[in-house]
């Protein structure tokens, strides 16, 4: 009985992903070479294309690991994660978790964090569009209403927590310099990633600003956020600190809307 279209596709899929799987009976004798060579075009393309997706999304990681180590890592990732997405853009999304959990890569936590930082920068690059508010928009808020104002944060913004000097590694790699030796930080560090104009950016956040930004993302009114800031440190300078954060966010095009509750 002739195999159905579904049978053929099932067999081809296995034959391409697992070269030891014999699908010769499905294939006509090629005019130019052996079945193995001609099927090999698809087998080679499958692995090399997925590796290329990883390398495109993780240029700094590839550079840091070196070509051979990155190829070895990619081979293991491809074996664990067949693509399940029609868009190659999302293929590498499991890489930080993979590197954090898989030996020998998990012994070097900066690898997973470099992948995490690059993924966050990639995500910020094509995150949804939103307006960005200016100082003129802020000045238009009546002073008596400022405590009720809610500051919507740009949808590209997200924070990650790192425990290594990954931001220093990234910056060195970007400049084409020899990266410093990796080391573990004394305490976890928050990193803000967002898109400004057309470019993805990141910067380090102190604990207080990190909390302030998170509360703004939750939609808390500015007055409530100021009260929380006052509890974290000197209450007399809480308003100034809050205003400083707000000013930095506006300059960085992080405020996408100002709403009055």
């Amino acid at each position, binding site marked *: 009985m002739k195999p159905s279209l579904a049978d053929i596709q099932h067999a081809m899929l296995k034959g391409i992903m697992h070269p030891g799987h014999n699908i010769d009976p499905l294939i006509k004798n090629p005019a*130019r070479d052996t079945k193995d060579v001609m099927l090999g075009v698809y087998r080679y393309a499958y692995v090399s294309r997925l590796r290329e997706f990883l390398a495109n999304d993780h240029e700094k990681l590839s550079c840091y690991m070196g070509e051979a180590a990155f190829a070895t890592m990619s081979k293991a990732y491809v074996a664990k994660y067949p*693509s399940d997405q029609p868009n190659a853009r999302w293929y590498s999304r499991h890489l930080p978790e993979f590197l954090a959990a898989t030996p020998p890569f998990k012994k070097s936590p900066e690898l997973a964090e470099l992948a995490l930082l690059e993924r966050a920068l990639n995500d910020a690059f094509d995150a949804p569009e939103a307006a960005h508010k200016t100082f003129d928009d802020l000045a238009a808020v009546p002073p008596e209403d400022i405590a009720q104002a809610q500051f919507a944060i740009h949808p590209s913004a997200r924070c990650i927590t790192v425990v290594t000097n990954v931001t220093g590694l990234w910056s060195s790699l970007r400049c084409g310099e020899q990266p410093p030796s990796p080391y573990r930080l004394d305490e976890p560090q928050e990193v803000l990633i967002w898109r400004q104009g057309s470019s993805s950016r990141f910067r380090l956040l102190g604990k207080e600003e990190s909390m302030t930004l998170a509360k703004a993302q939750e939609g808390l009114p500015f007055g409530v956020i100021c009260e929380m800031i006052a509890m974290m440190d000197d209450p007399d300078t809480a308003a100034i600190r809050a205003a400083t954060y707000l000013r930095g966010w506006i300059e960085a095009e992080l405020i996408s809307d100002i709403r009055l509750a």
Partner: protein
Amino acid sequence: MEKPAPLGFGLGLRPKHYMEILEGNPPVDWFEVISENYMIPGGQPLRMLDRISERYPVVMHGVSLSIASTAPLDMDYLAGLKALASRCKPKWISDHLCWTGVHGVNLHDLLPVPYTEEALRHVSDRISRVQDYLGRRIAIENVSSYIEYEGSEMEEWEFVGELARRADCWLLLDVNNVFVSGFNHDFSTHAFIDAVPAERVVQFHLAGHSEANTHFIDTHDEPVKEEVWDRLCARPSPLRTRVHHDRARR
């Protein structure tokens, strides 16, 4: 539905071209965009597409419709495709006569179908459903292939012609793909090109291919071969052509 008017000579839009296009207004008749590259939430690629599609006609060319797959149609993908079409107003939308995966796995390759009556029914039905969903005809492109299936019941060009008739779709004739497959499977490229229903062809593709020891591979990283130009020039139709020049396949 009337066949789209000829657009002239187009190029594949790539990020490295954005500024040159916007600053120089190059004399290109139209641009072809890879649909999936713009099926994203936002950011610079979509902004660039918006600006370029204001100045030039664009067509959308996909690689992941997987029209021949026996997996269910991916409605999320189709919704994204439709939204992009609504945004950039392409003159037409195309994808390949192929399958890219089954069982939830995407191989990110353009895999050939067996040329059987069963496949013909399956693919033409799916094209019809996609066209109904998108509210427009789509164009289907022949792919380069490296294997043929034992169970095929007809020639590729017979399959392509009959598919276009049954599904009432347009065709995108990739002359290089005909050339590569013709060499690999030892068939007459002239027979293929002569048999394709000209009234259905809305676009031609040209690209360079690589020569492996015994076969050709559609790598898009070489200049268009003289023989491929010859095959194209043998066609009497008005030209709507795009040249591929991309990354290496191998």
